[in-house]
């Protein structure tokens, strides 16, 4: 554990100065919020009544809600980190928030009666399902922290894609869902306090009862078991409490990211070590942190407008915090060496075996071009109809295929570079950066296809540049680079969510991009994709030797004469550029980059060059198929292709990981 590894930093648990300062700051800010609230334009008597209603039914409940939510999230984060022995676990990194959001989105759109009955129940189901999925995905790898967080990322992405598609399909309930997605603490009653307060007390009491097992959970598994601890039962009990608290908060006020991450981390910095100390310190710090943030967004806003939804604001400070916390993450074992999931192909296939795949892709492409639905039902386009439809079907097919190929290559590169089977382009945060670029372009420039295209490209490249600077720092291992990507992605998505919550024209454009549709692809997009394929994938083929060596570890690679830092940065740059172009074409959420390399390996293409080419072809084929299905399933309404690919890929990935693990035993 990180705690044990840093005995030099041990300090007495009090640190009264810092505690006092934080509490004082929260109190002063709250006082300023109350003192500076705008005057009401009404007759003095009426104004007095309204002032007091506003104070007692809005401002004070909001302040108390902030404290309770912060404390609940702090407690949940502390429990999750303890039980998973993972310093970066919290409700947002484990996918609880996105799972709950998807459940609420689906319920609002298709079963509003459920929402009236119990929105919290709906959110809880979604949160629990997400956590179960995340833990299931990483179970076979012993809940290794990196794998858990990356699985959380995958689950969050699929949930986000599905939410976006549902919102697009239903159109008009957007506002409520976005408010919820960005987490806001506005209150006009004590309902939230009454709902969450007792839960916090119960959660604290239950956690206190589990103090001794909690202390033991920090130890090695064998030691804990030797001391007579029912390991799994205890883990599930603690996990249950944490998920329940986090899901309740998200159901009541929406997604508030990173407080659960920050509070325990700060508590450790302030000297809390034992579970007893943490049990007091983490909720207290969580409460103060959220209170300070919430007061700040109120003070920075004008009149009754908050500067930003509080949940988005916490992500703004949470992203950098995650970066800072990364130094505590224990390095994972290099999975390439030991993981049977990565060596599952019994026969090593050579390049010749790619022939059937190429034929299959050609068949899929022909199907996509010829078979469609028209006003009269299914029809095979031939003759003049074919040549008329070609300008529409052709570019979108090429764009989809090119994006799939680019993502396949990018994913293959990233998995090789980081020696991590769960690396993928979405995870680097480059796609989310493109969203921020698009937001800026929509805000600052007159709307137009080139402005949008340029915005996404500049945003992606800026994030990439930051990531490369970060990667160039000494001692940054492959996992930390990925974590930096997750942090950056969270930061960018916080900005995008804030814009989405406004429900205006920009929000609409962002949503269309986010859901990923090849529908708007024309000649420009098709050529962009094709040229990017040639320009970006060809150089990688020349550098396959690096790909074979890099996963062997830094020392081995260097001894083989490989310029480790330089080759890594070069390949990462190519991978990020591929991601940027692909997100232009099919949106940021497809997961193809994660899945195609796995499929390639599963098919027996294990050597770098073979795997790369196979990933490119498989990515291309899957995306063409997804695009065709997305076009036809709900005709004339079209599903976003990015979502469709994610829906194909997500379940496949889960199956794959479990299959690989079961061979181990």
């Amino acid at each position, binding site marked *: 554990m990180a705690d044990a590894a840093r005995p030099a930093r041990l300090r007495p648990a009090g640190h009264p100065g810092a505690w006092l300062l934080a509490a004082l700051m929260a109190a002063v800010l709250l006082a300023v919020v109350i003192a500076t609230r705008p005057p*009401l334009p*009404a007759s003095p008597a009426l104004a007095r*009544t*309204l002032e007091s*209603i*506003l104070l007692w*039914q*809005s401002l004070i409940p909001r302040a108390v809600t902030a404290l309770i939510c912060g404390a609940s999230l702090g407690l949940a984060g502390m429990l999750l980190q303890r039980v998973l022995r993972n310093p970066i676990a919290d409700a947002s990194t484990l996918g609880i928030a996105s799972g709950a959001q998807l459940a609420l989105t689906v319920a*609002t759109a298709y079963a*509003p*009666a459920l*929402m*009236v009955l119990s*929105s919290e129940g709906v959110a809880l189901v979604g949160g629990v399902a997400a956590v179960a999925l995340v833990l299931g995905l990483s179970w076979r790898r012993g809940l290794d922290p990196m794998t858990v967080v990356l699985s959380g990322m995958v689950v969050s992405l699929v949930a986000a894609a599905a939410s976006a598609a549902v919102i*697009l*399909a239903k*159109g*008009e309930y957007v*506002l*409520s869902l976005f*408010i*919820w997605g960005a987490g*806001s603490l*506005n*209150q*006009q*009653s004590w*309902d939230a306090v009454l709902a969450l307060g007792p839960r916090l007390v119960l959660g604290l009491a239950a956690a206190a009862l589990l103090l001794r097992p909690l202390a033991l959970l920090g130890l090695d598994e064998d030691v804990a078991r030797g001391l007579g601890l029912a390991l799994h039962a205890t883990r599930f009990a603690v996990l249950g409490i944490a998920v329940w608290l986090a899901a309740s908060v998200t159901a009541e006020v929406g997604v508030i990211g990173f407080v659960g991450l920050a509070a325990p981390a700060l508590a450790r910095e302030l000297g809390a070590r034992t579970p007893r100390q943490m049990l007091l310190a983490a909720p207290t710090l969580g409460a103060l942190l959220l209170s300070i943030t919430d007061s700040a967004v109120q003070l920075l806003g*004008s*009149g*009754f*407008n908050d500067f930003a*939804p509080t949940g988005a604001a916490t992500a703004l400070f949470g992203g950098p915090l995650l970066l800072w916390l990364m130094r505590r993450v224990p390095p994972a074992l290099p999975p390439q060496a030991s993981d049977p999931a990565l060596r599952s192909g019994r026969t090593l296939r050579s390049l010749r075996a790619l022939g059937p795949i190429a034929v299959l892709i050609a068949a899929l492409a022909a199907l996509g071009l010829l078979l*469609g639905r*028209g*006003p*009269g039902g299914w029809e095979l386009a031939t003759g003049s109809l074919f040549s*008329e*439809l070609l*300008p*529409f079907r052709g570019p979108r097919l090429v764009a989809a295929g090119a994006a799939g190929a680019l993502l396949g290559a990018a994913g293959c590169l990233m998995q090789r570079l980081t020696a991590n089977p769960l690396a993928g382009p979405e995870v680097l945060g480059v796609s989310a950066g493109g969203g921020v670029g698009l937001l800026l372009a929509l805000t600052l420039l007159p*709307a137009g*296809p080139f402005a*949008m295209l340029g915005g996404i490209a500049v945003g992606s490249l800026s994030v990439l540049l930051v990531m490369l600077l970060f990667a160039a720092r000494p001692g940054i291992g492959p996992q930390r680079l990925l974590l930096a990507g997750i942090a950056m992605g969270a930061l960018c998505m916080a900005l995008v969510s804030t814009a989405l*919550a*406004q*429900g*205006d*024209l*920009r929000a*609409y454009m962002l*949503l*269309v991009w986010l859901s990923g549709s090849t*529908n*708007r692809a024309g000649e420009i997009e098709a050529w962009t994709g094709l040229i990017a394929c040639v320009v970006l994938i060809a150089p990688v083929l020349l550098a396959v030797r690096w790909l074979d060596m890099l996963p062997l570890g830094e020392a081995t690679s260097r001894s083989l004469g490989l310029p480790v830092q330089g080759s890594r940065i070069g390949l990462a740059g190519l991978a990020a550029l591929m991601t940027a172009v692909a997100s232009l074409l099919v949106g940021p959420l497809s997961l193809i980059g994660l899945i195609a390399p796995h499929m390639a390996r599963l098919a027996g293409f294990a050597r770098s060059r073979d795997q790369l080419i196979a990933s490119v072809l498989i990515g291309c084929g899957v995306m063409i198929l997804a695009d065709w299905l997305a076009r036809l399933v709900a*005709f*004339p*309404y*079209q599903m*976003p292709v990015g979502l469709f690919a994610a829906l194909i890929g997500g379940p496949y990935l889960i199956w794959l990981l479990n299959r690989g693990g079961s061979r181990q035993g």
Partner: protein
Amino acid sequence: MIPTKPSPTRRSALALLAAAGLPLPAQAAGLRIATVDWSVLETLLALDAPPVAAPELLQFREVAVEPAVPASVTDLGLRGTINFELLLLSRPELIFSSSFYVGSEPRLRRIAPVESFSVYAAGRPPYEPALAMTRGIGARLGIAARAERYIAETEAELASLREKLKPYASRPVIPINLGDARHMRVFGGDSLFGEVLKRLGLANAWVDQTSYSAMAPIGLEALARVPDAFIALIPPVPPGAMETLARSAFWNALPNLREGRLLPLASINPYGGLPAARRFARLLTEALLKAGSAHG
């Protein structure tokens, strides 16, 4: 309008539609119009020149409600992802677009000539542009007289409603959407609703800034700043929100609520054209008169 001898493509297109069992569009003799924008769709329907194809008709019938969409109009799918293939097969001779869809225009141009209108732009009130769009459509389709008549009807209706609303002119109105039980979207002076209020002689209670004509999300506590105002509540109302509000001490303590100044309206398209403006004016007037008679 279109020349006496139709081009071969058009003839074959009509044959194709007929073969597919689709009814031939009503104005087959005139120009075949398609649109990808709801405010254009409204206007076309109001001018009795229904398009052959338009997007998201299921939602349109729910959100914009009027004018009624004839069954002959082909649904082009979501506004965000127009089904270009179906648009092509609908064989339009002219496509009306709007500033929301600039990104799609290169694709649309492959199908037919595109004419674009910009009713909604940041910081610009939409009423005059909506008038211009109505005139533009009228001129383009050779029904300028009909367009002028519709505009005159609209102005006359607004004027007569303004007359009826004279007794209410002292109180402002705040047009909102509920986001959830804690937040709202407020429509400012540069929104369609704000423009209609001005023409009805009513003040908009929301004087703060807006972005693209509305501001969201705003906490409901902001309603305490406008205790005098009528709250024009425009659907959709999220499921469960009204039930939660009915229990809220804050909500029930608002003078607007206590004195019956909450006006739940039927659904209106907030980004519509003149028909949406008229619908809002009419629904708001009915609601105000009803509230007035109930509270003397």
